[in-house]
């Protein structure tokens, strides 16, 4: 590696391009050679340390002297995450959903992990963030971020709903009521004043929807006086519901089924998390 070069005596590689460009065959600088050597050594070390050479016999490979595997690295990373979560999860285990809700730090933790759970298990019907989903009959599954609850919006009621599932029930009235009666009832309900027509009591609607038409959460009958609709809230839509009922066993009936999640589908802790998560959508009600 000499520093002085007689300009005319250094040979070139012999190849000339663009009229006058050629490559001298000088030694690269010392630091560069050093870098090259170190890199080469590094390669060998790396090759030996990590699993590298596939062996043709038996589909195995050279395991590397370092004993590194992707799965152990992943497990190690996961255990770090688990450790962070562990202290929350341990607390959650023996707490009621209501107690979790009372603890702001736990609530924050639960709403964050609940998002994933909800996305995986609930959003298919209830939509991301509980906005509800629609099919050709209208709303397919209830909106979860308003404060109208068929079975109650307290944390315990929500928890119970997720655990055991729900099944709506309303008889089909097509054969029991005349067209005119259905029309009167539908108009009264659409106006939000079901009790304005005597038919409401006479025809037995009150048995399920209550004297005041506000529904009974114990049996999941809808509140007919508020502005949130489970099914189509237009006069036509209401007529359809009265005629065909809900889960009434007839071919045209409306369908409203929520599966149970306790047991095989979700763990107890997960259900608790979901209950709090859903409660925090904005419609949760105090006990």
């Amino acid at each position, binding site marked *: *590696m*000499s*520093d*002085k*070069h*007689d*300009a*005319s005596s250094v040979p*070139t590689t012999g190849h*000339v391009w663009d*009229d*006058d*460009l*050629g490559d001298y065959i*000088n*030694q*690269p*600088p*010392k*630091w*560069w050679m050093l870098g090259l050597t170190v890199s080469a050594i590094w390669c060998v070390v790396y090759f030996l340390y990590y699993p590298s050479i596939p062996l043709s016999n038996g589909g195995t490979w050279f395991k590397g002297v370092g004993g590194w595997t992707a799965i152990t690295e992943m497990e190690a990373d996961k255990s770090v995450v688990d450790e962070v979560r562990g202290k929350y999860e341990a607390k959650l285990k023996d707490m009621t959903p209501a107690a979790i809700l009372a603890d*702001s730090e736990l609530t*924050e933790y639960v*709403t964050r992990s609940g998002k994933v759970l909800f996305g995986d298990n609930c959003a298919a019907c209830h939509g*991301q*963030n509980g*906005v509800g989903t629609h099919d050709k009959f209208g709303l397919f599954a209830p*909106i979860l*971020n*308003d*404060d*109208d609850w068929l079975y109650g919006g307290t944390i315990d009621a929500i928890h119970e709903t997720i655990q055991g599932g729900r099944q709506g029930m309303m008889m089909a009235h097509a054969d029991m009521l005349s067209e005119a009666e259905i029309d009167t009832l539908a108009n009264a309900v659409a106006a939000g004043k079901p009790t304005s027509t005597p038919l409401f009591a006479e025809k037995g609607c009150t048995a399920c929807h209550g004297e005041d038409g506000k529904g009974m959460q114990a049996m999941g009958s809808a*509140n007919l006086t*508020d*502005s*949130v609709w489970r099914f189509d809230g237009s006069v036509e839509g209401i007529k359809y519901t009265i005629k065909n009922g809900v889960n009434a066993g007839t071919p045209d009936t409306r369908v409203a089924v929520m599966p149970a999640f306790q047991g095989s589908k979700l763990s107890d802790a997960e259900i608790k998390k979901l209950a709090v998560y859903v409660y*925090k*959508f*904005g*419609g949760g009600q105090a006990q």
Partner: protein
Amino acid sequence: MNQEVGKKEPGEVTTLYNEFETWTVNTGGQTIHAKRMPGFFRSFKDKAQLAMWLPFFLVPYLRWNGSQAILFDIQHRQFKFFGLTVLPQDIWMLSLVLLVAAMTLFAVTSVASRVWCGYFCFQTAWTDWFTWLEDKIEGNPTARRKLDVAPWTFDKIKKKLIKHTLWMLIALLTGISFSIWFVDAFEYWHDLIHLQLPTVGWVVIVMFFLGTYILAGFLREQTCFWLCPYARIQGVMTDNQTILPTYDYTRGEPRGKIRRGGEAVAPQGDCIDCFQCVQVCPTGVDIRNGQQLGCITCGLCIDACDVVMDKINKPRGLIRYASLDELSGKPAKKIYQHPRTLVYLSIILLALVGIVWGLTHMGAMTLKIVHERQPLFVQMSDGSIQNKFDFKVLNKTDKDFRVKVTAEGGVKGLVIIGAEQHPMTHHGRGTSFTIFARAPAANVEKDVVPIQFRVESLDDAKVFAEYTSKFYGPNK
């Protein structure tokens, strides 16, 4: 020199180098043993280096209110600057600081070439200190060259041992000094002495030790030649107006040895070809070949040449800070006629304004609000419209406190739900909570109205933050 190149006929591979019989490329094959000569630039360089880097060693020990005055506390994710604590959220100001630094480098370089390289760069400074030690221990360059090829006698071993030990001590101190900008200085020393540093601490100190020892002890000017990007970047910052150490070839050429007593045979320039300028150059450059990549513009050759000129009774300044314009006889332009510099200066100014604004507007609390996108709003059972907002509050004070949430604007009859318990915010940390805003449907007249939220500490009404978001309703 450049004109000469132009005159050559193209077509030959070696055309580029035709003006030299030999051309030199310093690839580190030979250690450069530069002579140390006193002079203006020598002492300026000494002082500049110290002024720049002494604080690097000492400032971490400075205390302020019982803790380290300046600390880049990576572990706790904050930057302490005397009484001020900057959290990562305000770190954007750091980018402006870096911008100021970069632009200052550019501006200075456009005016006076590689001032950074010559007088301030750590590579220059450490190399200079290392060679100073070398000079003290092994003697002047001639002695050093001799020693390098001498057989390994006891004397040689002793000298080399002392030198390398001192180098390593400096390198070690460098590593320690770097580290203590990031962790408490005294705790670090304690941990170091008890060998209790965390792994990353050892890695850093070993890296800096090796880096300093190798870069300043062995690679030296090679770093500037082949490793450092600033050498190239700064190279393109200069132009004809930039002043840099220049050999006045019209005055110096043709160069030749002075003949004592006798008359010069041919007309002779002022350069007596004594090679003093080359011998003092820390990068081994011959400045008489023109400005070049290897020159870090340290001015040491100016000192050397001036001494020679004094001796032969010629005016000083055969090598001097001069611009290409000056050398080619063009009138020198004023600094305000240098657009490049002006652009750099205005960028510096803007960045400074940004930093000052940032520091004065940092506030004790920041508030970010994300309006829920899905759904934009919800109709409640009584017909009212509800919007959901995710609040992120950052408490930048040094105390935990509870906050209250209020809103202005939005819709008539708006109620804020969710902050009844006055959420707790922890200092130095972000806290998030959900707030609902609900308004009677009859009052919601437009689909979007601005709403200004205010989060205020319950303890101190002066600690607050505001954020303007939107309240959505049905399309009417």
